[in-house]
């Protein structure tokens, strides 16, 4: 508790607070612009954080994460176009309310629900993380290997198209993490005689290429004009009566969002969909959902913001990313020579609790900025692509170059942007790719350490019940879906 209070106090230092406000504001703007998202913004910002202190860089990135998820509701409600996938469900009821002239009402509900969802998941994050971290201290290399395998497979299994494509993404990501000096033997591996590859592919140019350059090239090709916005008239308002009316829905959706966020790979969009379904199931007027039901906005927005806090729990306590953005955050910590996991609470408590405090405060800042500046942010979504994209691309080049003052990083960034485009065309999800790239060295290191400690080779894993559990869940995630499909096909009558 003392550490958390100290971290909260540190969050209010001028530099950290300024970074939190800036990060949240940037996140809101980028989150509100359809096509751009938190992952792109965070990847773009990483080169700058490279030169910043731990506390300010964490604040900036966490602010961007919270803002990026929350900003999506503005375009979802005013444009019927979700700024982020997490806000898709918000369009179901948000835009119908806007069309009836209730834009201000829909925005008010979305903003307050987002804030409440974030706040409730922050409480879970603060309450659960220290205990989970203590529990995870018992984990050895086999447990970590099992945990990472479970995260890989769950992410791949929940990929948008198919398990096979998700697995291809994860394995390709792991393959691109292999070049460089092997940590165990000190030999150059898969460098093909190229000296710059001795240190492997730097995580920053890879992330900028995959998330920023690829996205911009793809959007610039389409060159769609900005969508037409419905004007928001009237003041934002949320009264005590609203609080009483929506509280059960907010609580239920926030808990659903937090727990879904905890599971690797499921993410904010599924969280909002599940809580929307549950709100409809609990409703006395389920037929109104999809036609402008206020509870629909509340359920979606509370859950997608809560999933951010939920996803931060495995990240901070075990170093396992719950989403793509979390994988980028792990990359950010690694740049600062910080290894997320249970030892973070022991070795760098100011960083571990700093994450929690920054997330908590970022939600208050998000509430303030959105309440005061929604109309301004909405206007920014109307900035045309021709004005925005060249600036972002220029910034990417400068950012990649500034990492090591080396043009090799810029070419790496460009190469991964092209790879990302090819993978997108082939419908290979990029989430498993990035998580494979970030976690492969850790997984390999843990496996090799486990084998070195074990007298029985791979059978050593059988002596570790948690490792067996994680690997069994991973195996089930691969085997269960095709088996279930087969059973379903056999049960269904022949046409």
């Amino acid at each position, binding site marked *: 508790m003392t550490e958390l209070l100290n971290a909260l106090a540190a969050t209010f230092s001028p530099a950290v607070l300024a970074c939190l406000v800036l990060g949240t504001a940037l996140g809101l703007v980028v989150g509100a612009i359809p096509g751009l998202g938190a992952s792109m913004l965070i990847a773009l910002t990483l080169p700058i954080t490279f030169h910043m202190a731990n506390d300010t860089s964490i604040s900036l990135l966490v602010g961007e994460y919270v803002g990026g998820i929350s900003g999506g509701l503005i375009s979802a409600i005013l444009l019927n176009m979700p700024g982020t996938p997490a806000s898709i469900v918000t369009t179901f009821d948000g835009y119908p309310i806007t069309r009836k002239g209730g834009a201000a009402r829909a925005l008010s509900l979305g903003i307050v629900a987002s804030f409440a969802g974030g706040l409730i998941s922050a409480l879970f994050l603060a309450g659960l993380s220290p205990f989970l971290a203590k529990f995870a201290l018992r984990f050895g290399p086999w447990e970590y290997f099992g945990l990472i395998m479970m995260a890989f497979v769950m992410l791949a299994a929940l990929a948008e198209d198919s398990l096979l494509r998700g697995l291809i993404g994860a394995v*390709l990501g792991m393959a691109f993490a292999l070049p460089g000096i092997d940590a165990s033997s000190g030999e150059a591996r898969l460098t093909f005689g190229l000296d710059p590859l001795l240190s492997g592919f730097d995580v920053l140019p890879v992330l900028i290429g995959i998330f920023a350059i690829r996205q911009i090239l793809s959007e610039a090709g389409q060159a769609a004009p900005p969508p037409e916005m419905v004007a928001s008239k009237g003041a934002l308002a949320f009264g005590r009566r609203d609080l009483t009316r929506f509280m059960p829905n907010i609580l239920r959706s926030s808990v659903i969002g937090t727990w879904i966020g905890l599971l690797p790979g499921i993410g904010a969009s599924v969280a909002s969909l599940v809580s929307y379904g549950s709100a409809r199931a609990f409703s006395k007027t389920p037929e109104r959902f999809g036609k402008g039901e206020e509870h629909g906005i509340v359920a979606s927005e509370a859950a997608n913001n809560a999933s951010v806090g939920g996803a931060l729990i495995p990240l901070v306590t075990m170093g396992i990313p719950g989403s793509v953005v979390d994988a980028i955050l792990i990359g950010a910590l690694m740049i600062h020579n910080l290894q997320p996991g249970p030892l973070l609470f022991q070795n760098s408590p100011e960083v571990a609790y700093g994450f929690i405090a920054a997330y908590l405060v970022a939600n208050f800042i998000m509430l303030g900025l959105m309440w005061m500046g929604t109309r301004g942010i909405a206007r920014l979504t109307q900035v045309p692509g021709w004005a925005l994209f060249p600036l972002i*691309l220029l910034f990417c080049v400068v950012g990649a170059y500034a990492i090591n003052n080396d043009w090799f990083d810029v070419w790496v960034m460009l190469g991964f942007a092209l790879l990302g485009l090819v993978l997108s065309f082939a419908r290979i999800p990029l989430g498993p790719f990035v998580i494979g790239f970030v976690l492969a060295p850790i997984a390999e290191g843990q496996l090799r350490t486990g084998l070195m400690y074990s007298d029985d080779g791979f059978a050593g894993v059988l002596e570790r019940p948690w490792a067996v559990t994680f690997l069994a869940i991973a195996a089930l995630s691969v085997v269960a879906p095709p088996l279930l499909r087969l059973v379903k096909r056999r049960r269904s009558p022949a046409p």
Partner: protein
Amino acid sequence: MTRRPHPASDLALSLLLLVIAALLLGGAAQLPPPQFDPLGSAALPRILAGLLIVFALITGARAVLLWRAGGASDALPWSPGAAARGAAVLGLLVAFILVMAAGLAPFWAAGTVYVAASALLIGGFTPRRLVVTVLGGLALCAVLTVVFTRFFYINLP
């Protein structure tokens, strides 16, 4: 709603996976056998290459079966116009990086020209847009130069 991948793109993916698997196997073959740890540095590349080959065969076989069954749509996963515009934007970006890497122009000049040219390529030419983008590009390059040299002590070329 998800779009069904075109069999041609699946065949290309299958080929790409085989090429990457071959690179992994070729690189792993050059690594010495393990000395201190039981697994060694060549094991993971070989495992991943094996998985990629399996995935490539499944993806390729599915694409061929779909094609033979006549389930292939004529539409490619991207429109030719969008692909051409995206390629042109990429070409400009590559040209900008080449100019900068070769030291042919200072950052402020190359950056301004790049921003203006890209904006006109994406949005189309109008005299007003030209003025706006040149001024915007110049301002951004000036800000980036000041931020990187004064705050991060990095000299942009």
